[in-house]
């Protein structure tokens, strides 16, 4: 175990834990947008930056990535940290002015409005890449990724066409912090709406109750991956013994 100080409080953490994990364990709040326990930390949103003092040097580090050290002194609310958080929110507000999530978080962090010219195309994607990271690390099909570079960066499928490897599981929609990916099951079809691509998937019909319950492609993938007999998914979870 490692002992460090966060905001004047002595806190214990496991070796190898990050500052963010240690803070969460001790109910100390550090905002973040691109962090999710299910995937490797990415360090892109920069909201989780905290100020550390080490070897007489003070600097800002991403708490989602920085490993705890014995005797580390961490400040989550210093003036420098607050100023940076506010600027990040101003920049995100200008990028996604209509996103309720961003508006709410901004207010929470003390930012009422943004100084910058707002974008007009009603985007909600903040390029946190959680969707792509989950698709790669958890689901394992890598159907989507971040394409282009810099200000032209976008979340997309190859060639902006419906992906042939996407199984329609909707993990991306589930994990997206701003609701930029929408998933809707209508009748026998699941519609996945991403910022630049829309995909449709045929849903499987339960042999017993007749409800449509999961994309066939997702079930095929699971069956193949775990070597299951295809009949395993003939019934929906409600109708299974």
């Amino acid at each position, binding site marked *: 175990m490692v002992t460090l100080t966060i905001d004047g409080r002595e806190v214990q953490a496991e070796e190898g834990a990050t500052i963010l994990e240690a803070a969460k364990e001790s109910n100390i709040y550090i905002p973040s947008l691109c962090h999710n326990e299910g995937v490797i930390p*990415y*360090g*892109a*949103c*920069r*909201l989780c*930056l905290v100020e550390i003092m080490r070897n007489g040097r003070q600097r*800002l*580090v*991403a708490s989602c*990535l*920085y*490993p705890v050290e014995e005797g580390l002194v961490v400040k989550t609310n210093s003036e*420098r940290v607050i*100023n*940076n958080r506010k*600027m*990040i929110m101003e*920049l*995100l507000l*200008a*990028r996604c002015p209509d996103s309720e999530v961003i508006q709410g978080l901004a207010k929470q962090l003390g930012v009422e409005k943004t*100084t*910058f*010219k707002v974008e007009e195309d009603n985007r909600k994607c*903040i*390029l946190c890449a959680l969707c792509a990271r989950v698709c790669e690390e958890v689901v394992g099909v890598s159907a989507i990724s*971040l394409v*282009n*570079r*810099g*200000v*032209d*960066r976008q979340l997309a499928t190859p060639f902006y066409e419906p992906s042939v490897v996407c199984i329609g599981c909707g993990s991306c929609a589930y994990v997206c912090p701003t609701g930029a990916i929408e998933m809707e099951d209508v009748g026998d079809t699941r519609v996945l709406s991403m910022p630049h691509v829309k995909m449709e998937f045929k849903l499987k019909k339960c042999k017993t109750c007749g409800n449509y319950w999961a994309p066939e492609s997702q079930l095929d993938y699971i069956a193949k991956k775990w070597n299951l007999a295809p009949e395993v998914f003939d019934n929906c979870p409600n109708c299974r013994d």
Partner: protein
Amino acid sequence: MTSLGSPDELETLRKSIIKSRDPNKPCISICGGTGCLALGGASVINAFKRGIQEQGLNTKVDLRITGCPGFCESGPLVVIEPNNILYQRVTEEDVDQIISQTILKGRVVDKLLYLDSKIGKKITHENEIPFYTKQKRLLLANNSRIDPNNIEDYLALGGYAALGKVLSKMSPEAVIEEVKKSGLRGRGGGGFPTGIKWQSCREAEGDTKYIICNCDEGDPGAFMDRSLMEGNPHSVLEGMIIGAYAIGAHQGYIYVRNEYPLAVRNAQIAIKQAEEHGLLGENILGSGFDFNISISRGGGAFVCGESTALMASLEGKVGEPRAKYVHTVEKGLWDKPTGLNNVETWANVPLIINEGADWYAKIGTPKSKGTKIFSLTGKINNTGLVEVPMGMTLGEIIYDIGGGIPGGKKFKAVQTGGPSGGCIPESLLNLPVDFDELAKVGSMMGSGGMIVMDENTCMVDIAKYFITFLEGESCGKCVPCREGLKRMQQILTDISEGRGKNGDVELLERLSAAIIDSSLCALGSTAPNPVLSTIRYFRDEYEAHIKDKRCPAGVCKELITYRIIDEKCPGCGLCVKACPQEAITLVQKKKPVVLDQDKCIKCGACYDVCELGAIEVK
């Protein structure tokens, strides 16, 4: 060619090469670097080849196509040995005369000699050219003596002796101590002590380690690494092999930016020849040490000059940097300990081993040892590569070596450190080039780009240029860089186009502070430097743009007007033809032309074509 089995065999080969060369035999050395080629060097080379053939001089005269010596302003360059005669701005038409006069009759062709305008005299010998004499060309001097595609040229000058010494007499730890003692600091921009980096890498856990040579030289205006890699690739290879031995790595990579095809080609040939001679590969010089080098090309991404982005690219991924809380010397390429250094850093290593750390440490300042190559460009008379001891002042470099500002214009600022650096004004010209001194004034050494600006350079335009460049090169991963630079670019564009508002400078400063503090990598965190330094030293220019809607330097298109100076215009009509918008008309022959401001798009075509200075830009 049998592989050399020991350092002794290397020395034997070296002696026999030197013996077989007649120092009195005429040799024509022509610069084959990218710069001289761009000035028509290829046709000069071909003309010499033809001329020598036609005159039957094949066995009597050697022709050597060399690397770039950096005297670019005077290219294409030709040096005639053994008398060390330098001819500048040589054209295809001059070749016959050079052969008939200098080669066959030993006479100098006066019109091709360099003219020192300061003393009004022509200079015959290469080693007397003032541009060279004030430099300390430890790394660059050999460029004009070596054909980069012939390893024997490098061997004849003592090449690979350092490697032989290391493999036969020094332990890896001893090599690291020597490099530490020398005080060598990274030449790519970071300035990190090289010996300490090597030591950390050697001590890192794991048996598989890598060496990388960063030849992604992305700073616009910098071409030191290009010249070293094109002109003397073996000096870099030798440094890498020594470094690999010290660290305990058996695989190395040279990452060359895609825009340097000649550097890629020459490095590939050098590796092949080194392998043939047993200087690379298995059991190098019979020492039992194995090391291989592969070349990888970039794809046009400035961010891949950042070490973690470079490594991502080498792993077949996009060039996204990652946080360096765990250093790359511990977890780098493929998560293995990796020693990455810049081209110039590697090239310094054989020098340190050959001459000793004590000798090296005598050059430079207390904290910045050795020499540094700068690419001196922009509004300067002697554009080219300049190698000077650390500690020489900016003024000495710009005026004594660079020859000052052309056209009698006034010096305004010099930009060092590329897009990560800052502009230094006239008041600070006595600043010595030193890692820490440059950082103190808001700039940095960077990789060595030194861009000189005069009274006709607009500092707001320069800030906008750098931010636009960095916005386009940002990988897009983190919010402060991707979104922040975009907003800085918008504000600077507004200012340069007459839409600046009160408070814009303060907003730029506030935005800069956040970007510096919260960006993920050095691209973002240093991006505001050019903006902050121009605000620091040239705030009045920003205020003129914002308050008066005026561009004092006459650059920002929306704020300037082109005007015909009637008294100087004879009505020749050249500008009328040049104007793409037909905005200029010759109303009456031999009378001044008339410029329609409404049609004028400020393209400058008329200004370029008028030889009488009758067009004014304000």
